[in-house]
């Protein structure tokens, strides 16, 4: 079938939308405070996870492979997989629901930015770079 220019245009318009929908199973974005840039995630290594893992989308599988051996921040997951942050957050919500990953909140909610924490940052920077 010959492809007219009009058809090409249409393809270009629709193509980015389809994979996003498929990747994320049409899920909505989790609330803003979940899976922030600095939320840390890792695979649980759960036994029942193996079963669920077989049914993952390739992108969810990519995320699982990446966090298989340790903790990374949500931002790093997005950076390494080259997936948009929004997609990563949806995938992580789904994976956590399936008990395939666990997320560690960077700073316990109730805890305010306190002196002790900032002091630890200062010490860490001085040790690393000298002051």
């Amino acid at each position, binding site marked *: 079938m010959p492809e007219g220019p009009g058809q090409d245009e249409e393809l270009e318009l629709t193509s980015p939308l389809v994979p996003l929908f498929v990747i994320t199973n049409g899920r909505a974005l989790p609330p803003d405070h979940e899976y922030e840039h600095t939320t840390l995630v890792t695979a649980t290594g759960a036994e029942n996870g193996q079963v669920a893992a077989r049914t993952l989308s390739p992108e969810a599988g990519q995320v699982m492979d990446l966090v298989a*051996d340790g903790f990374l921040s949500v*931002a790093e997951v997005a950076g390494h997989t080259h997936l948009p942050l929004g997609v990563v957050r949806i995938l992580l919500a789904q994976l956590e629901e399936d008990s395939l990953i666990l997320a560690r909140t960077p700073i316990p909610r109730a805890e305010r930015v306190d*002196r002790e924490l*900032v002091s*630890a*940052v*200062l010490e860490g920077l001085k040790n690393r770079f000298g*002051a």
Partner: protein
Amino acid sequence: MYLDPDVSHAVKILIVGHFGVGKTTCIGSLSEIEPLRTEEEITEASVGFDDLSGTPDKTTTTVAMDFGRLTLSDTLVLYLFGTPGQERFKEMWEELSRGALGALVLVDPERLHESFPVLDLVERFGLTYAIAVNHFEGTTHYPLDEVREALNLTDETPVVECDVRDENSSAQALITLVKHLMSQLG
């Protein structure tokens, strides 16, 4: 690549500044990992208004933002996010400023007027900040006091020189900011 399994605290500091001021370079100088980027969607009002509804048209744009990482102890990791200072990125500021310790504001003294919108955002989101003056070579060298005055900064706001291409110079600017954060916490 992975964080220490004992890591319990992940904190962030924003490296902010106007277009081309040296944010990416600064993060590259400091980060222990090859700097990464996130692709984030923002909605913004497109040019012009919808005549019928009187509301601005909204379009979705993807913004690339780079960041780096510094492990500070077995339990503590610091992330540095390069955050563009244009007003239209305020959606990203909203999320990134939440829980951020503070902001290092990079300033090019040749283009001081471009730093006003950045300072406006920093103040609006309640971020404590320090100013790092990135002198590009071959340009006029401005005394820091002049920069302070031109930017209308309070006396307690730290203003330091910084060559963002240099690891140590960038680190000292960051340390100046964190010392200032300490002093603000009383």
